[in-house]
């Protein structure tokens, strides 16, 4: 008695499926007369009939890229955590809708926003590309290319300009980058003038691991490290192997090699390993940069994986702590 039912159900489903696929490509009628734009992601070229008005971003960095050119996203993933890690102006509007986690964003919530464009990141959203494309044109970027020769800063700029183009803000985007270049020069001059004891630095992000703190040390090909170099500092960390995410994971022992450099760090406020765990530790306390007071806190909400605005925050913070000291 179940079988006939099943067959009928299947038949109905297949019919509806067929119906769906024919009606899928309804032409969108944009209100304004606008030029179509084509953007390049890792999933190929994506052409929009007009610059996107309503964008859903599934990764924080790309939300930041949008904010940098003055566009608020329609929806974004993991908004609640965003504020804890990212500190940039302009702030996110309160009207931006939370579409669930970054790893498994809520497809229904995205679809309900009826976006013109979805922006995802390769290592999370490649697997659900087809699903996303049924909602809206989707572009995927990969901030961590497996090709070692690709400079992650370059990647950031390219992606930023693509996103700016997608929302029809190419001029604003270029302006942001030009301003950024000017700032680099300004800050490099400040650093130069400050007459630091050493311009060697390492940049770290720490959090508490299983029993002992884990410290991410940024490699020279990471975006954050290139920003350091731009303002005249020198990242001394040389990883043993290529690190795809742009950082090696160390414990305190590993820092010994770099004790002569300046120690730049960010650490979450509620998980401050330097206060809670390392204070009084003989190895940590005897590291040259601790002894000589050359550790510099960049603040918990300085985002080391962001776009141009985070880059700006990062260099401001670095110059502030290094120069005013």
């Amino acid at each position, binding site marked *: *008695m*179940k079988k006939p039912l099943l067959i009928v159900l*299947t038949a109905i*489903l297949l019919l509806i*499926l067929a119906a*769906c696929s024919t009606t899928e490509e309804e032409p969108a009628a944009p209100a304004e007369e606008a030029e179509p734009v084509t953007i390049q992601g890792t999933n190929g070229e994506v052409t929009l009939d007009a610059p996107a008005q309503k964008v859903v971003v599934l990764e924080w960095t790309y939300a930041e890229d949008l904010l940098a050119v003055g566009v608020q996203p329609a929806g974004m993933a993991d908004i609640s955590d965003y504020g804890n890690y990212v500190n940039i102006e302009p702030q996110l509007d309160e009207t931006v809708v*939370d*579409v*669930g*986690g970054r*790893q*498994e*964003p*809520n*497809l*229904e*919530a995205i*679809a*309900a926003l009826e976006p013109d464009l979805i922006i995802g990141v390769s*290592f*999370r959203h*490649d*697997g*659900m590309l*087809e*699903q996303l494309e*049924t*909602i809206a044109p989707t572009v995927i970027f990969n901030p961590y290319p497996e090709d070692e020769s690709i400079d992650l800063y370059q990647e950031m700029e390219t992606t930023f300009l693509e996103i700016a183009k997608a929302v029809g803000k190419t001029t604003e985007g270029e302006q942001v980058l030009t301003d950024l270049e000017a700032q680099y020069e300004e800050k490099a001059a400040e650093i130069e003038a400050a007459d630091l004891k050493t311009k060697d630095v390492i940049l770290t992000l720490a*959090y*508490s*691991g*299983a*029993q*002992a*703190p884990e410290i991410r040390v940024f490699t020279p090909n990471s975006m954050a490290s290139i920003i350091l170099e731009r303002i005249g500092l020198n990242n001394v960390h040389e990883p*043993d192997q290529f690190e*795809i995410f742009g950082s*090696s*994971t*160390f*414990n*305190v*022992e*590993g820092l*010994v*090699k770099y004790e002569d450099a300046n120690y730049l760090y960010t650490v979450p406020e*509620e*998980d401050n390993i330097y206060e809670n*765990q*390392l204070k009084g*530790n*003989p*190895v940590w306390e*005897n590291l040259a940069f601790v002894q000589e007071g050359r550790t510099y806190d960049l603040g918990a909400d300085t985002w080391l994986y962001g776009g141009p605005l985070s880059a700006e925050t990062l260099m401001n913070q670095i110059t502030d702590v290094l120069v005013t000291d």
Partner: protein
Amino acid sequence: MLRRLLNKSTVSLTAGFFLLIVLSVIHLIQGQADYTVSELLTGVWTEGRIQDIVLSFRLPRLAMGLLAGGALAVSGAVLQTLTNNPLASPGTLGINAGAFFFVVLSTIFFPGLLGAFPFVTALLGAVLSSLLVVGLAGNQMEPVRVALTGMIISLLFASITGALQLLFENQTNGLFLWGSGTLVQLNWEGVAFAAPVILLMFICAMLLAKPMDILSLGEDIASSLGQNVRVVKLAAWGVAIVLAAATVSVVGPIGFIGLMAPHIVRMMGIRGHLQIFIHSFIWGSVFLVGADVLGRLIQPGQEVPVGAMTALVGGPWLLYLAWRTAKSLKRGERQMGGTTKPIRLKLIVPVLVVIILGITVMALSFNGSVWTFAWLEPVVWNFRVPRVLTSFIVGVMLAITGVILQGVLRNPLADASVLGVTSMAGAGAMLLLVLFPSIPPKFMPLGATVGAALALGIILVTAWKNNFQPMLVALMGIAISAFGSAATQVFIVKAKLAVASALVWLSGSTYGKGWDDVQFALILLAVFIWPAIYLTRSLDTLTFGDDVAAGLGLNIRSTRVWALIIGVAISTVAVSIVGTIGFVGLVAPHIARRLVGFRHLPLMLASGLLGGLLLVTADFVGRILIAPKDIPSGLVVALIGTPYLLYLLRKMK
């Protein structure tokens, strides 16, 4: 005789100490600051950097390894005598898991408490799970049953912990992955706490050695020799539990040391509990320090959790032990726990269909915050509808697998996840990813199939002779599972890439299923349902036992093989669609058997419906509980499945 014993003892002690020293030296050399041996040797004596590093990082880690390994091994040795069970250990009895679960609980709900008394919370958990095991396993303390109960309790705690970690992401940030205890130390605090407790308990264990020698002659003899059996047993349980809890509160749950070390000591011919305890301590230390050395060799500069390393060796060991123990097991009668007064299908099917329709309507209409009945709206139609349908179809598949596997193995505990098939499928897929990093995710089912086949092969080979004794097969399956998930963990550290997506895939999720998946699932269900239905007649015949079935003209061997192939094929299909979702295939046939009895055709129909219902419900709950975020439905199912499994075990008297 005495001479020979002395010799064995000397050999074991010398070998143990020698290995321990060699491993300790290697252990001390390993570290991120790459000093050479000569640098270390010259630097360590004078005040300065090298001395600091050795004294505050490397030595505490080594000391913790020695203490934890020894403590776990002695705890295992005590438990093995107490329960008269070669399979007993703090890991297999679920004591480690209970202790760690309580540590997680208190981190989340009473963060202040944990800082002050991690040991107290761990102890509480350890005592609780010991009581649970003893209570659930029954008074006879039959070895395989006890171990099985313990392992299932571990699974239960693991899945609750997993759910908690998802729900309280921020609070559990610093906590490690389940089961992956690690020896990393930052200073002497951990050692300073653990050393006195462990040493004190070790002394207690040695004092108890004599009474335990007498106890192992049997309780009756012991009490006729004037021993207060109750006091001795209680004290011994206390020692074993405190040892385990002290270890877990510092290094987290590390399995299998407590199982292997005492066993190897006994195999070397060491007799008498005093000797056994001393030797176990040394060999436990050897194993744990060795595992830590190995873990750091695999991926220099990275931490492979030492718990994963011990499970990698310990899983197969448990398998071997279970196999040996079970040789002496009597062929138990097979109670499949069904009803003899089946409810008529005409009644039960409509009732089930109505319930399914009810749940489906709810699942289709609610997204966690808003009700809507406009199912044809693209938002609902493109995402929610196919997701619910896929859940249903996959649920049906998993339930059918369960019916087939349980029927052919005549084993009420058989199910792809209990047999370790799903876990090995996961490991196989990850291995593929490690070997060929650029392989598209579409090929992951290929690795999954190989892994699944391997798991099944192992079960077939090891359990054939014992005629698939139910609890033995289940225990072996869980041992294979432990191995599979440890391997997966190591692969994940090794692969580095795509870990996030692989993890989601592995935890089993009905997330993001589209109409393609519905089509794919429907087609495969349509292909496989016919051989499955055809099999029901043979399965019915098998119910009478092998001899009768053969007399009735059934080719038992080929029936078994075919049924297993089809069962595993269907479950691999399910794994390739939704990842490793367990327990549906266990729970659904059981409930069905209580409703419709033993005949396999109605059984398959009813459990298919129930399986679908179960997974749709799990998907619904996972989707709305912390909306707009998702809880993987595999986790939700495990939360329902493990208690049910325990209940089953309790019923299987």
